C-alpha cells in the first residue's frame, strides 16, 4: 500500500508498504530518517518517540497505515538547519549523551515536556521521562540537561 504523510514539514510518500510495517520502520527504512531508534519495538524504551499530529507517541506502536495523511515530527525535525534546538544543545553540554541510542527519543520527549511544563521540577521530569530508558548515563545528566534547556528556553 501507499502511505502519504508530512514528515518534518515535508510531504512524503512511501510505496509498496507491507501492511504490518510500523511508522518506525517506514521512517527509518523507507523515508531515510533513522534518527528515531529501534531499541525494543514494544513501547517500553521510548527511543522511537516522535510527534504524531502534535502528540508524543512511540513510532513503533503506530501502524504505518495509521500515519497516512498525518503530520509527523521526528528528532531530525527539531533543529533549525545547522543550529541545534536548545534541548539538543543542552543534552550535548550537560554530558547527557553517551552511546546516544536513547538520545533522540529523550530529546523529543523533553521537547514535549517543556512545551507543557516550562520549568519542571525533578519529580515532574522523572514522571514525564519514565518511558525513556537510558542504559548508559544513570539519568543524572539527563535531568541536568532538562533543567539547562528549561532555563534557557524560559530566558529566551
Amino acid at each position, binding site marked *: *500500500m501507499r502511505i502519504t504523510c508530512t514528515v518534518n514539514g515535508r510531504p512524503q510518500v512511501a510505496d509498496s508498504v*507491507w*501492511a*504490518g510495517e*510500523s511508522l518506525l520502520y517506514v521512517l527509518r527504512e523507507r523515508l531515510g530518517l533513522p534518527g528515531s531508534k529501534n531499541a525494543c*519495538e*514494544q*513501547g*517500553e524504551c*521510548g527511543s522511537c*518517540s516522535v510527534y504524531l499530529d502534535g*502528540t*508524543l*507517541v*512511540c513510532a*513503533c*506502536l*503506530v*501502524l504505518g*497505515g*495509521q500515519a*497516512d495523511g498525518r503530520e509527523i515530527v521526528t528528532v531530525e525535525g527539531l533543529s533549525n538547519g545547522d543550529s541545534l534546538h536548545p534541548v539538543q544543545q543542552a543534552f550535548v553540554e550537560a554530558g547527557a549523551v553517551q552511546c546516544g541510542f536513547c538520545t533522540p527519543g529523550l530529546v523529543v*520527549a523533553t521537547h*514535549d515536556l517543556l512545551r507543557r511544563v516550562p520549568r519542571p521540577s525533578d519529580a515532574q521530569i*522523572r*514522571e*514525564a521521562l*519514565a*518511558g*525513556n530508558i537510558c542504559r548508559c548515563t544513570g539519568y543524572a545528566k539527563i535531568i541536568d540537561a532538562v533543567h539547562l534547556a528549561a532555563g534557557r528556553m524560559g530566558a529566551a
Partner: protein
Amino acid sequence: MEFLQPTSWPEALTMKAAHPEAMPIAGGTDVMVEVNLDRHRPAAIIDLTRVAELTEWGGEGDLLRIGSGVTYARIIDELGDRLPGLAMASRTVGSPQIRNRGTVGGNLGSASPAGDAHPPLLAMDALVELASVHGSRRLPVSEFFIGPKRNAARPEELIAAFLIHPASGPQQFSKVGTRNAMVIAVCSFALALDPKRRRIGTGIGSAAPTPVTAADAERFMAGVLEEAGLWERPSEVDASAIARFGELVAAAARPIDDVRGTAAYRRHALSVLARRSFTWAWLEYQRSA
C-alpha cells in the same frame, strides 16, 4: 495482511462484519507489540483511529458514556475529577507516550488479566457496549472477561464504549510492580466507595485468569458500614474489620506463579493494598463528610 481503515462507525461495523477475523487496532500498544515481535500475524487489521465517534464522551442519564477510543491521557485530563479511580489507574499505564495513544477500549479488547483499566471498571460496575451491523448490546464488565485474554465480544462485534457512574465518593487504585514506573502489574487493586448507592466496589487485576471483583469483601465492608451507620456518621472503621476486608480481597484472587511474581506474594500484596486503599478512601470520606 489486509489493512482496513474505516472513517465512520457504520463503515467500521460493515467492515468488521465482512472481515470477522480482522484484529481491531486503536493505540496499537498491544497489537503492534505482537506484530513487531512476530508473535502474531492477523489476517487483517482494522484501524479505528479515524472513527471520530469513538473518541467522544458525554452523559447518558446518570451514566457517562465514554467512547472506546478515548485515550488514557484524556481520561486523566478530562475525566479525572469524575472518574478518579480510573484516572489513577491510567496514570500508572506505561509512559506518557503510551498514555497518549492507548485507550480503555483497547485495554478491554486485549482483556489481559493485567489490564490496568479493568479493576476500576469492575469496582465501578461499568458496562461495556458492543456493536455490530445487527445492533448493539451492553453487558456488565464482570461478564465481559471470559478467560485469559478472551472477552465476550462476538467476531462481528466491535467495542463501542463503556458506561460508568461518575464517582459519588472516594476511589483508589494501587498497583504492585517491581520498578517504580513503566511496569505491568504483579497485582493491582481498585476500590470505589459509593455513598450514594451505599456500595463498596472492588476490582482485582493480575491475580486470576481474568480481572475479578471481591464480592465477599464488598458485601462484608458494606455490611460493616451499614450496621454502624458509618455512611451517615463516618467515624473510624475498626482495624479488625479493615484487616478482614483485606483477607477477603486476597481470598477472591486465584493467582499463579509467573515471571512477575509468586501466587503467595500476590495474595499477600492484595490484602495489603486492600487495607491501605480502604484506609485512604475512608479517611477522604471522613474529611469530606
